[in-house]
């Protein structure tokens, strides 16, 4: 099967490339039927490289850099973390899949691989359209005002100026931060920051939506608002993946649950069965 996969991937590589990041304007040409596969994960392995923390402590000085290079020869302080170890499953149109597991079980790593942001070590992820991770935090800058960050975040998610203009007021309204939008984000309370980030990230609609514990932000009022928003996005999206530690949310919104343990699928099935087994451990 591995050979077949390789064969196929080679065939795929020779095909004229299709603009894969370009799905934001036009959804799939023919609306996918209920039950059609939208995401196929085939024996996925992901290995992270982690470098020794020492490299951050001494910076800038050229002599230091040379010394370290000499000392390190033949003994690189690099560790490999095998985060996902051979996961396979098929997600279908209309699925809302919850992913549960302990910290460090590979949940977020797997989501990033599905989103096409992390290259697999071996195996493959096949998708229909471009899955998007719900989250824009990394693109924002704390020193800048909320206004600038809204524009920056929208562009980072691939919007054009007209779309940014159209969404701007909606984002400010939804976040409910009011005139604070003119202050730098570094002056925000953590709740305000989280609200603005969620408002920006959820301003776009997606084909395949990946949500990584985005629910537990802000006060109760905002949590209710954001859950409504996520429900709406879920209805618009064909397939949803949801990573959360809050099992109630998963039970409420998902029709299938995958339990990851140490990078492998421990259980995959309907929420009642899997959650019952998970709670027993």
């Amino acid at each position, binding site marked *: 099967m591995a050979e077949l996969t390789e064969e196929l991937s080679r065939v795929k590589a020779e095909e004229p490339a299709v603009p894969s990041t370009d799905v934001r304007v036009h959804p799939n040409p023919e609306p996918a039927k209920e039950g059609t596969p939208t995401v196929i994960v085939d024996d996925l392995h992901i290995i992270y490289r982690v470098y020794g923390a020492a490299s951050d402590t001494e910076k800038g000085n050229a002599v230091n850099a040379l010394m370290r290079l000499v000392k390190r020869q033949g003994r690189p302080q690099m560790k490999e973390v095998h985060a996902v170890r051979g996961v396979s499953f098929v997600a279908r149109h209309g699925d809302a899949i919850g992913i549960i597991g302990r910290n460090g079980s590979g949940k977020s790593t797997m989501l990033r691989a599905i989103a096409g942001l992390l290259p697999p070590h071996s195996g493959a992820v096949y998708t229909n359209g471009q899955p998007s991770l719900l989250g824009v935090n990394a693109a924002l800058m704390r020193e800048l005002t909320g206004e600038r960050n809204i524009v920056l975040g929208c562009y980072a998610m691939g919007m054009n100026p007209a779309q940014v203009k159209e969404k701007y007021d909606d984002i400010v309204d939804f976040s409910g931060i009011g005139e604070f939008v003119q202050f730098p984000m570094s002056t925000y309370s953590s709740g305000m920051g989280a609200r603005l980030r969620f408002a920006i990230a959820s301003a776009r609609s997606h084909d395949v939506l990946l949500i990584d514990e985005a629910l537990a932000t802000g006060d109760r009022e905002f949590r209710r608002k954001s859950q409504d928003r996520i429900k709406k996005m879920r209805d618009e999206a064909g397939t949803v993946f949801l990573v959360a530690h809050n099992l109630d949310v998963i039970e409420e919104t998902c029709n299938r649950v995958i339990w990851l343990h140490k990078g492998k*699928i421990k259980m995959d099935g309907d929420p009642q069965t899997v959650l019952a087994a998970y709670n027993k451990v």
Partner: protein
Amino acid sequence: MSQPESAIADAQAGGPSNGTPEPLAKLAARYGLRRAIARPSLLVYLRQLWERRHFVMTYATSRNVSKYSNSALGQLWQVLTPLLNAAIYFLMFGVILGASKGIDNYPAFLITGMFVFTYTQRSVSGGAKAISGNLSLIRALHFPRAALPLAYTIQEFQQLLISMGVLLGLVLLTQEPVTLLWLLIPVALALQTMFNVGASLVLARVGSTARDLNQLLPFIMRTWLYASGVFFSIEDRVVGPNGAGLPQWVADIMYFNPAAAYIELMRDLLMQTHPARPYIWAVCVFWALFALLGGFWYFWRAEEKYGRG
């Protein structure tokens, strides 16, 4: 139910019912699913990059704004930094070390060299960090990764426009006349920018895997600075009677260094007394095209791997 195999069994439910398991890759092909991570063709990649031009520009501007947002003088530092730099270098090399021997209008010579070199230096060192310093961004959002090194160079370009204003003012102060040649300054800057973009793309890919590059870079940059004839005339010091007395071809090779070439070109344009180098335009055009095309191709080749870090 409780094993990964159940997922594969699940996959077969939609497949042909002849009993043999269908490989997942085949199932994907049957439903027209594509690999989640795949490198687009070079043309498609260029188009995607063009579609992200607003992001690139906004990101560059945002970085420039946030850089000085904590200081009381704020954006004024964009002008003050080059001015202070010029003052220090003039004091060190012009007054104390007396490197000005035999060079007409040494202040203009030095400051031009310094500003032109700084532009390339900062673009290249920025490029080296563009991927390795933004891993969280790369692991969160989709965009052509070349947008990052490009944004870093554009950020430096915005800074350079201010520096050029300072430079032109200082050059005028040293009694250089405004000539028609000044009209060519934008062309020279465009060529240098093309080189900078290409070089920072190369360094971005190298820096994304070679972690020690960032430690080594200041060292390389200082060597490059001394080899590029910023403080002295390469011709005088290498070939001339007061210099090392080496053959002419050594100087010719040193002038082929892209940084030296762009510095010499700008001096030719700004200073009337500066002796023009032969073939300088050809060298500058060559480096611009070579670096931009080669750098872009080299960076694109690893596009799908940058998330790994």
